[in-house]
């Protein structure tokens, strides 16, 4: 699974996710990536793209929940990501996600042993990572 989240200079957020799904999956299986609010979500506040165990991400409506806890619990982006990864993945669910907010923050979180990720911000911060 691959994904990208962006906020541009006008503060507009967008998210995109694309995948081949799971190895050895049943024909006809739909995962989280195309399901808005689970694998992908964007609103005026933020944009999120998820990856990992699709069925757990679907059950946890992971992407929408990051936006929801920002909106209703007034959490900052990284706090919202940490909360959702910690609280919304049910027993044993393995996933990761990347996020940007409309004020130019980036954040990510995962409960797997690693996630292929990269990010850059206007004030010069850049990161490319795999492991914890």
């Amino acid at each position, binding site marked *: 699974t691959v994904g*990208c989240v962006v906020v541009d200079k006008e503060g507009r957020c967008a998210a995109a996710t694309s995948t081949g799904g799971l190895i*050895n999956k049943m024909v006809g299986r739909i995962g989280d990536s195309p399901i808005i609010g689970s694998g992908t979500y964007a609103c005026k506040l933020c944009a999120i793209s998820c990856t990992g165990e699709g069925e757990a991400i679907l059950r946890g409506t992971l992407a929408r929940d990051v936006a929801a806890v920002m909106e209703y619990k007034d959490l900052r982006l990284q706090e919202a990501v940490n909360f959702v990864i910690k609280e919304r993945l049910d027993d044993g669910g393995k*996933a990761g996600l990347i996020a940007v907010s409309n004020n130019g923050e980036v954040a990510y979180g995962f409960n797997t042993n690693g*996630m292929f990720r990269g990010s850059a911000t206007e004030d010069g911060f850049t990161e490319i990572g795999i492991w914890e």
Partner: protein
Amino acid sequence: MGRWAIAVHGGAGIDPKLPLERQEKAKHLLARCVNLGASALRTNNLSALDVVELVVRELETDPVFNSGQGSVLTEKGTVEMEASIMDGLKRRFGAVSGLSTVKNPISLARLVMEKSPHSYLAFSGAEEFARQQGVEMMENEYFITQDNVGMLKQAKEANAILFDYRIPTTGLENCCAVEADNPTMMNGLPMSVYAPE
């Protein structure tokens, strides 16, 4: 004027023994995609929606990660790709599933959002829409890499048929529930089959 920012991912859940040269290859692709998006945002000639599509197309076209070329295989050895894109300003979105010939699923998802009365098209309807829209379509062989044929073989040998991983393991001999406390398993599969994922 706000500040731009971009993040990309290539999948979570990685074989702890992933060879270093594979790790470097993945990092190079991630860096290339972050730079591609950042330079588009810096010059401000592309919107956030344009940039996420541009970057995911780049990721789909490189076989390093599980999407587009290099997609993993179903139990029948076929490719079924899916994608979605969402515009935060108006909360519009487009999604596709069950694609087996479209080179860039993310661009078809955007066309569903912008050129169809719907938000989500799947399988034969999505392929038909792709032909109408004239998007680039490939022979199935383009998507199937030797790596993925090998990983499907491994998955089958692990007898990991993917059901809802919460089904109790007793009495369902052909179902592998993920051992939540077993870090080397994910979704009923040994982590090693998720090498590029």
